[in-house]
């Protein structure tokens, strides 16, 4: 995007919502704990933050939203003291700074809970919370005073509502519990502002509620919270005020009364999202069964047989809590994991599926959960990634034809709108959404029969999400059987034709379009009957 244009647009948006922020500032009388004034930060070739201002008052929960690349991570780095802004002031507790240091940030009570947790899995909860600050016994050996440690940890755990004890090893905790440990850690340094970066992105639904409760408890203690999330309905639930970043600028501030999904999206992308996928209302004639799993058992739940049919021309949503065995099922269907009994049929023909190569040969493709580790090869070019599963078709006498590769890749690049200088661009330099499109492109180039997508839009900005929904629908319309695993409730309900829900390794129920509701999915996900 052209910078001058985006700046212009930013100003326009800014003025358009000024009245919101004005009222909220007027309404408040307490002095802000933190305020940013005209913060600008540039990286080579990129203006990451362009005169950004915001403030956080004690006991306030700020929802910070924005598309990927809007400048959220730069803002976090500045607040954490990892980078210094080029210009602008940061006022913490009434003291103005040009930039913070890591120690300064910590010392003034700013604590972070990152998306990737920084815990030592092999140590117990107490050791993690007081790592490097353990109470010591006297004497030359400086042994850890375990008794005192436990006394200090107990109240912290209570404050975050922990249901586990201080000597539990972190590896035995669920993700949400680990996040509670991180928050307890923040409390232990007497944090006055806790910044949570995408805390719920990998949390199952039930655990998300617990975390949101903890956030509200922090507010009651007068601790401020900045809650960064792509899950807008969660922001809607907890935030007192929402700050929207776009192209490094403040796109707008929404007071509590004005926080709603559509407003946030509008500010985030500067327009209303029309492409929001809605399955066509006309009832579809269900196609024949494409992929049929009978009594399939996975390594995660070797004693729980799974039956599941995916039909031609449908998008079957696979919902459930994290750890319910959805990814493992996908991996078995793709031949990556060993199948512990049961059978898999494609169009009535039984498949052995001893490796992913078998699945690929039959037109069963997987867009895996972890894009960077298993989806693409970051060091290869776009063209090389797209041709990789079908390389012999791009070769003559076993010698790779670069021109054939480029031709295939160019076609897919245009079809999917992959934004890159050329197909020779290294895939690792692309944004998450474009990398995901490369994963899709390599399969689309080979006529899929069954397409399994595991969390296809995680960590992808809203614009690219809509495009990926459109692609899935186009695939289904072309007769492909689409199986979409997703933990995003809005996505599952908005995109699927049917929803299968997994609970502890088994399909607990399948919902037809008429029965779609968040409540029903949730009830099935925790093993109860839908209404």
């Amino acid at each position, binding site marked *: *995007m*052209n*910078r001058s244009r*985006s700046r212009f647009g930013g100003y326009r948006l800014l003025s358009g919502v000024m009245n919101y922020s004005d009222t909220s500032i007027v309404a408040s009388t307490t002095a802000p704990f933190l305020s940013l004034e005209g913060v600008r930060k*540039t*990286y*080579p*070739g*990129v*203006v*990451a933050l*362009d005169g950004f201002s915001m403030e956080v008052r004690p006991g306030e929960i700020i929802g910070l939203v924005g598309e990927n*690349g809007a400048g959220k991570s730069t803002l976090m780095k500045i607040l954490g003291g990892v980078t210094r802004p080029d210009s602008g002031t940061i006022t913490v507790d009434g003291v103005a700074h040009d930039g913070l240091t890591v120690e300064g940030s910590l010392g003034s009570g700013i604590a972070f809970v990152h998306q990737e947790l920084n815990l030592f899995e092999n140590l117990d909860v107490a050791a993690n919370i007081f790592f490097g600050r353990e109470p010591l016994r006297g004497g030359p050996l400086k042994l850890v005073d375990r008794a005192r440690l436990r006394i200090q940890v107990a109240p912290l755990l209570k404050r975050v509502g922990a249901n586990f004890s201080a000597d539990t090893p972190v590896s035995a905790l669920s993700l949400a519990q680990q996040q509670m440990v991180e928050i307890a850690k923040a409390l232990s340094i007497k944090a006055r502002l806790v910044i949570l970066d995408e805390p719920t992105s990998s949390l199952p639904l039930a655990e998300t509620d617990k975390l949101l409760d903890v956030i509200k408890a922090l507010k009651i203690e007068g601790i401020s919270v900045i809650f960064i999330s792509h899950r807008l309905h969660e922001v809607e639930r907890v935030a007192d005020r929402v700050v929207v970043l776009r*192209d*490094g600028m403040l796109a707008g501030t929404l007071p509590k009364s004005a926080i709603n999904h559509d407003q946030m999206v509008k500010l985030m992308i500067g327009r209303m999202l029309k492409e929001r996928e809605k399955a066509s209302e006309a009832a579809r004639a269900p196609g024949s069964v494409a992929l049929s799993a009978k009594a399939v058992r996975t390594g995660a739940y070797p004693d729980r047989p799974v039956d599941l049919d995916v039909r031609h021309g449908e998008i079957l949503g696979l919902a459930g809590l994290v750890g319910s065995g959805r990814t493992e099922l996908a991996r078995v269907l*793709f031949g*990556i994991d060993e199948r512990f009994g049961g059978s898999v049929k494609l169009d009535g023909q039984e498949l052995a599926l001893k*490796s*992913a*190569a078998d*699945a*690929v*040969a039959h037109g069963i493709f*997987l867009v*895996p959960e972890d894009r960077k*580790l*298993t*989806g*693409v*090869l*970051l*060091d*290869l070019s776009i063209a*090389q*990634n797209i041709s*990789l*599963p079908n*390389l*012999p078709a791009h*070769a003559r006498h*076993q*010698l*790779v034809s670069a021109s054939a590769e480029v031709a295939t890749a160019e076609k897919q690049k245009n079809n999917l709108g992959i934004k890159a200088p050329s197909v020779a661009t290294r895939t690792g330099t692309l944004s998450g959404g474009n990398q995901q499109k490369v994963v899709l492109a*390599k399969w689309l180039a080979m006529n899929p029969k069954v397409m399994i997508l595991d969390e296809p839009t995680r960590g992808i900005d809203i614009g690219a999400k809509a495009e990926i929904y459109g692609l899935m629908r186009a695939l289904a319309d072309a007769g492909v059987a689409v199986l979409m695993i997703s933990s995003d409730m809005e996505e599952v309900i908005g995109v699927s034709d049917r929803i299968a829900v997994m609970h502890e390794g088994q399909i607990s129920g399948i919902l037809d379009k008429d029965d779609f509701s968040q409540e029903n999915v949730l009830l099935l996900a925790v093993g109860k009957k839908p209404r």
Partner: protein
Amino acid sequence: MSKKDLGLLILILVVGAVVAIINPRFLLPINLANTSNLIGLFGILSIGQAFVIITGGIELSVGSVVALLGTLFIDLIAVREMEWPLAFVLIIVLGAIIGLAHGWLITRLKLQPFVVTLCGLLIYRGVARFYTGDGTAGFAFGQNFPDLEFLTAGRSYGVPNSFIALIVISIVMWVVLHRSVFGRYLYAIGKNEEAAKYSGIRTGRVVIAAYVICGVLTALSAIYFAMYTRSISPASHGQFYELYAIAAAVLGGFSLRGGEGSLIGVLLGTVLLQELQNLVNLLGIPSSLNFAVMGGVILIGVLVDQQWGVFRERRLMLDATRKGAAGAPAE
């Protein structure tokens, strides 16, 4: 040819020029022929090693395999009087079987390459010594194999045939590594084996094939080494050859993490190593310092390469900043 390879070539030429000025005997045909013969022998070995390293693996048993297969080859043709073409094929097949076994242990039984091939290093050396009763395997007086000797230790137009063999193998292997489907799979696996698997590549088979290629080329070089030395004491023959091969690959720009390196790189690495050996002899450096010189040069080479990479990245960043200040687009 990549910039890295070009840099290495220039280094080889500069070192060569310096040695030639100090000791003009460097350029005598006999010296060049001897050196290129050694380049041929070690080059074949190093290319095999390179195929394993590109997958992120390592093959430590190379030296012991050279000793074992060399001993067997001499024994077969000199003592058991087997027809040499038959013995030749047998040894190559044995090399392939060794590679197959290593590859199978590594991919199917999920053992680490370092462990598998370290055990190989010990086992093959032990077997070789036991087989000859720790004696020396060699030809009896007056035994001649004119065709075989010509092909292995002979010369055509003054060029050692071992060197010519290396050139032929290099051309074939260059095509395999840089142009074939299999070569692309090797790089993909070296870069990220999981992602390669998720793209439907049968990674196990590809990795096994890499070890088989290494085994075959090692067997071939074992025959060349045997015919070059003509007598083998299994306790010391081929010792440290795996390290020569690994060093050549590393000097040539291979990463031990896999996924990086070129065939020209490993060839130039071999050339530089042999040039250094030659330098030690010609410049009157005590031969006991041989290994120290090699180690030092490799360390400096890798260090310069790495620092150059850091420097280049920084320059790119600075360029981009300057362009950014001149009004480049925002994200």
